């Protein structure tokens, strides 16, 4: 079944949009918030705060982004449970293996592990300092290097007279590549047009320039200095960058010149303008195709064989890192160049978890080996698999309730304990239980204890009875005066009554209600009760 535009519009209408850190309350009890994950504009990690536990859904996150707002890990601190669902390392790992297998003449250079896991950990183990060190670190430098490498390859191709085709994958990468390539072209003094051919190019680019609140700090700084957030605004104005909805757009034909640099969907190489352009250029060895990691290049290029075009495949960060390998390989197949960057490091996960201090971490089963639970004492690890329910122990036996502030008379019991009966109404608001005590005064009869405990001190009771002018004779049943035996007080003054005292019960029989209630008071005053 194919969805109509109306269906899509209908669906989108139902979406409630949120800002980062905006609270939305579901059903009075769950407070849901989104925080930036750094991967792309608007990508989020979610927290769900309920009366029972606070949950973080941690998705693929990037500490320092060159376009989107950075990973806001601070706001995830202190939640009880982390549902870890950053699968980026899983894809990364398999990708590397496949590439190694695929090429017989692998020409790999193994870079040294960039970090020593133990060295930057002198910050009393909370990981905060380490996390901070990740900012401005080699991580983003590597990303810049990758972009620079792609730029240099593109410039090389263009100089040779070949065009460059970049299927659109991650938006952030496209935005940065547009900026970088145009800079490189300018510094090489090349007048080569850049085209973005996509039905949504105009909307997307206009959009990226009106969302400063969702961007990284460097971009926000541009807002404050009154510059456009992305360079594409000026590039379009200067007619260096051209946007067209489709290859057959009439204006495109007028503008078209080769060599050129084209961004276009779809990364699968099966749909969109990219198919036409690949057909056109696949036989030209001067041309360059830039693929992102995650695409099976062999398979994707199958319909375009024989491929003479150079192919550059590059992986960009798409999540928190797990592995220890910085893997850089360059190999050839089908007369093309495949360049693989694979950066996998485990070391970001553990300091992150140490800093977030969850009580439970739920990890995908596939990461059981990658992330050993042994060296964290703070959290318990659980591993989940698809289609299986995982039971997590409950954390709190109690709800936290707020009590509105006036108190009814309470009862002091032991030295340091105080009890009070509460009567009122319970509200559940914004994830909080609020107990508002009733305003009407409780009548005196209601303040009589309903519940008693402890054993009754006979002498004290007789004293209290005498204070109330009640006299009676004590009859111990049996010879033992043990606590289990019943003891009777025959009251004769002011009226007849019988008090039967046992270890854990007392029975008052009286025909006279006033007397009965006086005796009840006396008994109550001797026992603990509420």
């Amino acid at each position, binding site marked *: 079944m194919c969805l109509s535009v109306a269906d899509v519009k209908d669906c989108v209408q139902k979406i409630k949009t949120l*800002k*980062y850190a*905006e*609270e939305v309350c579901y059903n009075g009890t769950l407070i849901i918030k989104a925080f930036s994950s750094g991967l792309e504009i608007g990508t989020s990690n979610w927290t769900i705060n309920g009366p029972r536990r606070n949950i973080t859904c941690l998705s693929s996150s990037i500490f320092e982004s060159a376009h989107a707002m950075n990973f806001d890990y601070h*706001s995830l601190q202190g939640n009880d449970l982390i549902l870890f669902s950053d699968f980026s390392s899983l894809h990364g790992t398999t990708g590397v293996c496949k590439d190694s297998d695929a090429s017989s003449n692998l020409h790999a250079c193994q870079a040294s592990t960039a970090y020593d896991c133990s060295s930057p950990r002198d910050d009393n183990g909370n990981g905060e300092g380490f996390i901070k060190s990740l900012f401005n670190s080699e991580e983003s430098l590597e990303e810049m290097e990758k972009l620079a490498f792609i730029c240099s390859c593109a410039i090389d191709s263009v100089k040779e007279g070949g065009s460059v085709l970049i299927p659109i994958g991650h938006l952030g990468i496209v935005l940065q590549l547009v900026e970088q390539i145009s800079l490189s072209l300018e510094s090489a003094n090349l007048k080569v047009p850049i085209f973005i051919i996509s039905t949504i190019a105009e909307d997307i680019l*206009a*959009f990226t320039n*009106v969302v*400063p*609140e969702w961007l990284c700090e460097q971009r*926000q700084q541009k*807002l*404050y200095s*009154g510059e456009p957030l992305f360079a594409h605004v000026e590039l379009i104005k200067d007619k260096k960058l051209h946007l067209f909805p489709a290859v057959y757009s009439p204006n495109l034909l007028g503008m078209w010149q080769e060599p050129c640099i084209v961004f276009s969907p779809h990364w699968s190489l099966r749909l969109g303008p990219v198919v036409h352009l690949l057909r056109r250029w696949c036989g030209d060895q001067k041309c360059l195709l830039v693929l992102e990691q995650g695409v099976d290049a062999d398979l994707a290029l199958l319909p375009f064989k024989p491929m003479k075009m150079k192919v550059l495949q590059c992986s960009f960060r798409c999540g928190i890192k797990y592995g220890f390998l910085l893997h850089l390989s360059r190999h050839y197949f089908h007369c093309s160049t495949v360049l693989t960057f694979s950066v996998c490091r485990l070391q970001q996960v553990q300091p992150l978890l140490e800093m977030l201090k969850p009580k439970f971490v739920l990890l995908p089963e596939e990461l059981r080996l990658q992330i050993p639970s042994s060296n964290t004492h703070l959290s318990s690890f659980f591993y989940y698999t698809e289609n299986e329910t995982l039971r997590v122990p409950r954390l709190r036996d*109690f*709800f*936290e*309730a*707020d*009590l*509105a*502030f006036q*108190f009814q*008379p*309470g*009862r*002091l019991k032991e030295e*340091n*304990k*105080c*009890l*009070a*009966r*509460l*009567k009122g*109404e*319970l509200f559940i*608001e914004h994830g909080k239980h*609020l*107990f508002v005590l009733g305003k009407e005064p409780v009548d005196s*009869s209601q303040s009589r204890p*309903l*519940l*008693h*405990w*402890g*054993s009754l001190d006979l002498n004290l009771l007789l004293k209290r009875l005498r204070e109330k002018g009640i006299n009676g004779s004590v009859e111990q049943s049996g010879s033992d005066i043990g606590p289990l035996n019943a003891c009777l007080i025959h009251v004769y003054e002011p009226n007849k009554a019988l008090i039967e005292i046992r270890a854990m*019960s*007392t*029975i008052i*029989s*009286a*025909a*006279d*209600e*006033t007397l*009965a*209630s006086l005796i009840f008071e006396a008994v109550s005053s001797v026992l*603990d009760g*509420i």
Partner: protein
Amino acid sequence: MGLEGDTWQEKSLAAGNLLQTKARKVQLQLGSHSAMEIESLILGAGQEVGKSCVVVSIGGKKIMFDCGMHMGYLDHRRYPDFSLISKSGDFDKALTCIIITHFHLDHVGALPYFTEVCGYRGPIYMTYPTKALAPMMLEDYRKVMVERRGEQEQFSSDHIVECMKKVTAVDLKQTVQVDNDLQIRAYYAGHVLGAAMFYAKVGDSAMVYTGDYNMTPDRHLGAAQIDRLRLDLLITESTYATTVRDSKYAREREFLKAVHKCVAGGGKVLIPTFALGRAQELCILLDDYWERMTRPVVINIDGGLTIQANMYYKMLISWTSQKVKDTYATRNAFDFKHVCSFDRSLINAPGPCVLFATPGMISGGFSLEVFKQWAPSEMNLVTLPGYCVAGTIGHKLMSGKPTKIDLDKDTQIDVRCQIHQLSFSPHTDAKGIMDLVKFLSPKHVILVHGEKPKMASLKGRIQSELGIPCYYPANNDAVHIPSTQYVKADATDTFIRSCLNPNFEFLKSSGESNSDLGFKDSNAVQLVQIRDERVAQGILILENRKKAKVVHQDELLPMLGVENHEVKSAYCCPVHISNLEQIKPNELSRSNLSLDPSSRKNALPLSKCSWLHLLFEKLSNELPGGDIQELKNHLQLESFHVSVCSNDNCPYKTLEVSDIKSDTGLYPDPCLHAYSEVLRFESRGGNFPINWLYVPIGRGVFKPSSAEFGPAWFGMKCKNLGSSSPRL
């Protein structure tokens, strides 16, 4: 906040009632630092418009809302008196943070002075647009002060830059955790781009400071929007405390008509405005209108300021109205088609012209320059903003229709041009303020940013119409209001569940309960009311150095580790049954009575079980709502038991029928054989009002005495029985 052992106090109630000798009134005080009140110190905009600045102490935090300057003063009165915050001048220690609502100078004008000259280095919050646009306003003002008035500057360009570096930008609705206790959130306020109302919450105390706001959308901005919040305090602007405005569109049409007429007649239109806000609104309005005109005249904007401002507006379009927002991809509304920069040499060029020039109130600068040239011609038009500070030319033009204006002792300007005063304002009117106050229903309202007499009248309305205490303090006054504080307690599942369960009560009321003493036909119509009060009950446990706990009654004893001591009340009384023929056949058929209905005089002694059963039948009839259980040796309803007394020494067994008579004034029918048995009524663990109950069995009477006990006596709620003693 936890309950510390030394922070709560108990007070004995000196009540005469003996019952309450052990009852204590519990008062809880939370932490010595948290004074249970909110203090609002008005440093500016108290009974005036200008230098908005309120310092609110709430839950141990101190927040400065706005840090504005007064445009009407040049002396010390220009800035808020910051010495009232801290005598020592250690503002970092005194203040938790500063919140700026929008970029107008009467709200942000003193900020660079406060941070760079007074030395405040703590956090400052404002929205993204305010952070982007405030420096422009500040720089523009600084230039005017220094270059045009030749005054010594209060702060430099660098000061502005350094000051803005300290600012944290926030998005709308983003919940910002300033520290562990203080949470703030911005809400859309309309008024100008990026204007926000701010919500602040510490513990259970919460407040909103509105800044300036507009409850109706204009050409480029939406209306103010806020959630329904539980608030102790609302501090609201009250510029138009008594004005009620009609449709904005009519006023806009008036403006357009005036401009059109002037331009069509070949005249020149001077629109003095500030660079930001009104300028963009009018640009959109004119640009839009010009679209529909055949021969549009170019709209000129003087200086780079407004052109540059438009650049900001383009990027911040998501802060404008929905209508403007929706079109950003195809054409950004701030990409004006008919607007261009003004060439100042063309000031006296012939032909029609529309010109935006700063400043807005013609207090100097280029707008004054142009005014001097254009005012003498009756073909020309000058528009004036809705509000002009006294002393400015704008203010002089507004008050009456002067034909000559003395600029200084040497210069006099002939005023023959037309004057059009813009009557639309980015401030809410009185209705909008009332609507907001009503919507938020805070516990207290403070009015700022208004004129004293109008504020007094609005205060009266808020107090009388909405019943909310309202204040409008003068500058340097402080208002103290109590704040909400809750006791945090751990509540058990069982307690919470018991609270959430529907709590139906079946109330029976009978129409003629007072008609006679004790007899009432069981078939009489009984009205059953169902009430779901959701009155929840629980027990609060306070313990030294432990968090308060709320449990359900059933959980208390195990939690305390003690055993229940049942205090039962019992009463034995003889019950006489007579008139057995009145027992209906259907009752008998269901009973195990072996009676011959024809021989009433030979009624046999009933067995104990039969006795109970008979009672059960009777009571079930009388009390259909009550869930009476017939058990082997007793009947039970909730905590109430009825059994046949097995004690041979029961002191009441020998009670005579005459005793009953004397007590109740009722006799068993003497003509019939009566049979009596001692019934024991026992209640377990009850807190029961002492009432007499008479339950007829046949025409006999039994009288459970003092032991009748209960919020529920056989399902009859005390409330229903009430004070009029139950006579069934």
